[in-house]
């Protein structure tokens, strides 16, 4: 089983790493709000299409349909929400690792490997949806250089996708530790830090989904 983790208490009695991750998340809020602000300020100001919610006919007569694919994005949003559920179950499994498991249900709920795998898999699926969406947009004529919508959209969602990618790498590293020596209650803080980051990425998407995709 795992070795006891070193504690880094501050004068508040709280672990410095947990304070640091919350401070980091606070700063990330500002980063994403700046990107969202940019998107909203540029919204509706593109001189040429494709547009997010309206069809566009170019001077050459080429017609572009509304470019956002709401059913696909709704599915990816659901996937990311479920990954947050899997992550919180992974944390609970690590915290309760030493609690005896009597039933199959207890063993499933208590498997940190299963829930970490699920979270990483769902995160990767979300990235797959995003890769599909970006490819479809480029094929339909929208790139980061096409118009203000393309620039602000790809920057905002691209930054979010990069954060999800970092989260998946973090999860895979936790999985590697779990396979190597097992994650136990002494590692709960390390998993908690990853979980906080993952949930933050999820809440950012909750906001992006509403502001970018649903509000016309």
């Amino acid at each position, binding site marked *: 089983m795992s070795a006891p*983790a070193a504690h880094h208490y501050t004068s508040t009695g709280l672990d410095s790493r947990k304070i640091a991750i919350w401070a980091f998340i606070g700063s990330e809020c500002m980063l994403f709000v700046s990107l969202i602000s940019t998107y909203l300020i540029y919204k509706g100001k593109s001189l040429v299409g494709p547009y997010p919610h309206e069809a566009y006919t170019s001077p050459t007569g080429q017609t572009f349909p509304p470019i956002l694919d709401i059913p696909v994005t709704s599915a990816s949003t659901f996937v990311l929400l479920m990954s*947050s559920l899997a992550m919180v179950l992974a944390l609970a499994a690590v915290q309760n690792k030493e609690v005896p498991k009597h039933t199959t249900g207890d063993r499933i709920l208590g498997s940190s490997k299963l829930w970490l795998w699920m979270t990483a898999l769902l995160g990767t699926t979300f990235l797959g949806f995003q890769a599909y969406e970006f490819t479809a947009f480029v094929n339909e004529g929208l790139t980061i250089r096409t118009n203000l919508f393309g620039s602000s959209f790809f920057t905002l969602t691209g930054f979010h996708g990069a954060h999800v990618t970092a989260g998946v790498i973090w999860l895979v590293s936790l999985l590697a530790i779990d396979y190597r020596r097992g994650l136990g209650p002494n590692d709960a803080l390390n998993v908690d830090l990853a979980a906080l980051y993952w949930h933050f990425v999820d809440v950012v998407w909750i906001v992006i989904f509403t502001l970018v995709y649903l509000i016309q």
Partner: protein
Amino acid sequence: MANEPVHSDPAATTPHAAAHEHHHPTWQTYVKVGAVLTAITVAEVWAYYIPSLVASRIFVPMLLIMSAVKFITVVMFYMHLKYDHKLFRVLFTGPLFIAALTLLALMFLFGQLAAKLGR
């Protein structure tokens, strides 16, 4: 384990700090929260496909409220801000408040500027 409450992370706090914390929810609560989040998302997408609702004045505020409920639910239950130390709440809501004010200020500024420039 099924009905056992998940305890606060023992490695994150000293006993003194832990005294200010409460137990984390059970897995049943997490699943219920997941169901609520899914239901709200379904309602949001459903609303998007009702043209009369989209054209109405309540559409945008309604979506913003639903999004805010989802945001707060994840932060409170999945990120455990409801149960954790108050300092974490301050570290999160402080920058979030500043960011929200910045967003509103920018929207107002650019809205006014665009109006003055006639765009």
